[in-house]
């Protein structure tokens, strides 16, 4: 019996939504970590019971939470999981994200006004578990850097080659901060990863994270005077199909882009979209040329055009798009869908899911043809991920 588990991070806690393979009747559990911002939760493909969550607060800082039972119970890795730990010194300094300044000294990055600003850790935006080892997980953080844990989230080491790439002084924060928000692991090549940063751009490593190459040729950003700028692009999200890891799809600040050569070159595939601004993008689990975006009116008005919430689907790898509206609000809808708030399941009939800043989580059990809300009134949704259990 197949089932799905939808992991929802919100401004005020985490929720786990579960259903059988029909995806009609849902059970909602949570809030977990009530009152805390949960930027991202994601489950391990190597062990579906292992889930990582980024729990963060402007007051109390960054914590990592882990579940080993599919989201029923949680604990901070490295700490005892009983009510009151035994007296004595703590065994470790858990959940600490310290830049590796010995390997790569901290530089400055560009601030909003063009001046240079010190690099400061703020939070973990994205957690990407290894495809093969449940204890290995990557963390993308603000201010932008990539970390890795190989002990289930207890200890984190920076992969300093990215932050120390040398272009750091040209990186700048987007409106939400200078976050490393996208981490893509290549299932066919363990040495290859893609990451993306707002607003630095996309980068690729072919040596397991030791060195990184900017992969932004073909991107055009109106706020960058140099049309050939290698750095500074506000990439919102990147997605791939697992079976075709050299083909990348990108939702940039403006423009939906495609690369067929692992990011070496990009071309625009916005085509007939009513607006090519947006945040989320994803690819059908079984059709590598079918992709989904949620067009947002503009960078000044972060809501759907004319108050009509629409997912757009392309079955041709971009350029030709069709609106998907059945079951979605037809009027008076002024929510946003954030970059990590869309996901697909891998059931035979691919399911598509997304969450909104209005607290709705929508699901389609038929690849986008029809939609229904799983929940309507959660806190603002920051992230949506799906686990498929067969």
């Amino acid at each position: 019996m197949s089932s799905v588990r939808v992991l929802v991070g919100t401004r005020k806690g985490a929720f786990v939504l579960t259903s059988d393979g029909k995806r009609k009747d849902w059970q909602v559990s949570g809030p977990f970590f009530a009152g805390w911002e949960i930027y991202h939760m994601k489950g391990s493909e190597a062990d579906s019971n292992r889930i990582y969550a980024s729990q963060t607060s402007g007051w109390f800082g960054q914590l990592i939470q882990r579940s080993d039972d599919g989201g029923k119970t949680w604990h901070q890795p490295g700490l005892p999981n009983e009510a009151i730990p035994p007296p004595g010194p703590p065994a470790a300094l858990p959940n600490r994200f310290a830049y590796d300044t010995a390997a790569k000294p901290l530089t400055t990055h560009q601030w909003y006004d063009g001046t240079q600003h010190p690099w400061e850790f703020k939070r973990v935006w994205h957690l990407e578990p290894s495809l093969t080892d449940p204890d290995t997980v990557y963390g993308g953080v603000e201010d932008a850097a990539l970390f890795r844990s190989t002990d289930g989230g207890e200890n984190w080491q920076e992969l300093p080659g990215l932050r120390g790439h040398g272009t750091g002084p040209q990186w700048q924060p987007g409106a939400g901060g200078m976050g490393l928000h996208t981490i893509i692991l290549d299932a066919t090549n363990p040495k290859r990863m893609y990451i993306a940063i707002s607003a630095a751009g996309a980068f690729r490593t072919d040596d397991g994270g030791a060195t990184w190459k900017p992969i932004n040729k073909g991107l055009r950003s109106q706020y960058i005077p140099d049309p050939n700028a290698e750095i500074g692009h506000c990439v919102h999200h990147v997605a791939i199909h697992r079976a075709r890891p050299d083909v990348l799809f990108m939702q940039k600040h403006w423009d939906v882009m495609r690369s067929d050569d692992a990011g070496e070159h990009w071309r625009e595939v916005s085509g007939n979209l009513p607006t090519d601004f947006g945040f989320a993008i994803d690819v059908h689990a079984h059709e590598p040329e079918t992709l989904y975006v949620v067009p947002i009116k503009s960078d000044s008005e972060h809501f759907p055009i004319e108050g009509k919430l629409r997912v757009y689907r392309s079955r041709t790898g971009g350029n030709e798009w069709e609106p998907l509206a059945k079951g979605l609000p037809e009027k008076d809808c002024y929510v946003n869908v954030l970059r990590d708030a869309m996901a697909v399941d891998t059931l035979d009939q691919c399911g598509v899911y997304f969450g909104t800043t209005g607290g709705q989580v929508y699901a389609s059990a038929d690849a986008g043809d029809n939609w229904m809300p799983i929940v309507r009134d959660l806190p603002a949704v920051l992230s949506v991920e799906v686990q498929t259990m067969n």
Partner: protein
Amino acid sequence: MRVALPYHLRNLARIEGDVLLVVTAPVTLRAVLDALETHYPMLRGTIRDYGTGQRRAFLRFFACAEDWSLASPDAELPEAIAAGKEPLLILGAIAGG
């Protein structure tokens, strides 16, 4: 002695009410926080920064109705705090929600 934590940190530490700690003299902010983090390691990093030991920007310390947020971490707290007659208050600054 007693420490009163903000709501979210009580939840994180899975406690209700004030935290009761035994702190040997001299009872300073540093000694209290060291003891607190020893018994409740999940609080490490949530009150003061891991690396620098500095108070997190949006937290405040109060002792006997006085603001100790900017006091030296090695200054001795009032006798009423050390004796447990009054709790050391750790509060979240009001800066949104």
